[in-house]
């Protein structure tokens, strides 16, 4: 007997036959007065069951969603961090580049103070002219740059490696000095003693002076002697300035001892 109207779809159905569940829409209808004994029992059981967790109904018109904001935050953080890293590297490189190109040009004999030493670059002298020796390339000559170094600390110095002067000649040719031990067998014939040649491993106490030896183009008549000023910056040494002295290469006329 259809004696009950569904609260949702309003279909009439037999309440006892379907135990309150609408055969059309499936909605369970709440208990009402005057239902049968069996239904009363079911209702009682249903009431004893703990209420199920709330189900959030998602519809296209009314979206109720609990959003997790972490992914968005992490992505934004990553993008910002990468931009920051690239920015830092770029700025740092630009600053170092600028510092390395900040050149202070000095006259011969002017004092250059680097760390605990004072350098005086005095003159550039031809030692072996081009074309005289077969051990030199046909287009090269050997020159010496006379440097006086004074230790301000007053203690023994065994290495000048970090502050070796290099020369520039011609059109952007740069040369590092030669090791004294390598040139000793050749310079002897040109009146230069081993004590007069400096290199990175020369040890000294208060002061020392002598020649740094370079090979340059035979046509070079001027060299730019350069010393870099380096300072510690975040754990590593970076160039903070460059000193240079432009020297004419004096031709070899007399014994180099004079």
């Amino acid at each position, binding site marked *: 007997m259809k004696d009950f109207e569904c609260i949702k779809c309003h279909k009439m159905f037999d309440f006892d036959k379907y135990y309150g569940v609408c055969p059309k829409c499936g909605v369970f209808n709440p208990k009402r007065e005057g239902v049968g004994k069996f239904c009363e029992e079911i209702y009682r059981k249903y009431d004893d069951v703990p209420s199920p967790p709330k189900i959030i109904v998602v519809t296209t018109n009314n979206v109720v969603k*609990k959003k*997790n904001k*972490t*992914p968005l935050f*992490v992505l934004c*953080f*990553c993008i910002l*961090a*990468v931009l920051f*890293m*690239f920015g830092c*590297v770029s700025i740092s*490189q630009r600053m*170092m*580049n600028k510092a*390395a*190109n900040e050149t202070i040009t000095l006259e011969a004999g002017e004092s250059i103070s680097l760390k605990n030493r004072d350098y005086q670059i005095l003159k550039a002298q031809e030692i072996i002219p081009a074309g005289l020796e*077969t*051990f*030199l*390339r*046909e287009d*090269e000559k050997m020159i010496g740059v006379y440097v006086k170094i004074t230790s301000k600390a007053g203690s023994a110095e065994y290495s000048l490696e970090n502050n070796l002067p*290099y020369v520039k000649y011609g*059109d*952007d*040719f*740069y*040369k*590092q*000095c*030669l*090791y004294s031990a*390598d040139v000793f067998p*050749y310079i002897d014939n040109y009146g230069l003693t081993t004590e007069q040649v400096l290199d990175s491993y020369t040890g000294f106490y208060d002061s020392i002076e002598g020649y740094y030896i*370079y*090979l340059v183009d035979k046509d070079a008549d001027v060299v730019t002697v*350069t010393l*870099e000023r380096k300072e510690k910056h975040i754990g*590593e040494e*970076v*160039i903070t300035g460059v000193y240079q002295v432009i020297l004419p290469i004096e031709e070899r006329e007399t014994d180099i001892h004079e």
Partner: protein
Amino acid sequence: MNEKQSNGVNNIAWIIFAVIFLFLAFECMLMFSDRTKIELLSAETEKIGDTYQGVKAQDGYEYYKVTSTLKNNGKEMLYAKNVHIAYKIKQELHGTDIYHSCEIFDESDNSTILAWDNSLMLPAWKTGKKVDIVQIPMDNQSPAEHYLNLELEMGEEVKFSQSISVKL
């Protein structure tokens, strides 16, 4: 696992993702900065002939002096001897490019020259020059133009390659 626990696991996963991503980005940045450490800007060639420092070139070869202009973008001085340039001759034959490797004159093999003179250097942040004496094959039969292709290498391994073509 309830909703809160599930969110917690998701957050940890995202944080791990962020750490890995930042690590990889940092590595890429280091690689990128290493790649641009040195640049090959230009090169010039000068014909020497079939003899250099008393040493005759192989048959069919001639010596060329190749002067390359390089920019050191790093914060440390580089010895030019550590900057390797591979020289290849490019010839176009029937529409196809053919490359032949060229031999660099090794002065340490020549006892008449001071083998220790490897003092050419590139100071940090400066543009400098490097000179190589290269033996280049001369194909007299072919009227095709010769092009010298330069590939810049760093250290012992080829970290990157940069090419500039120079017309001989």
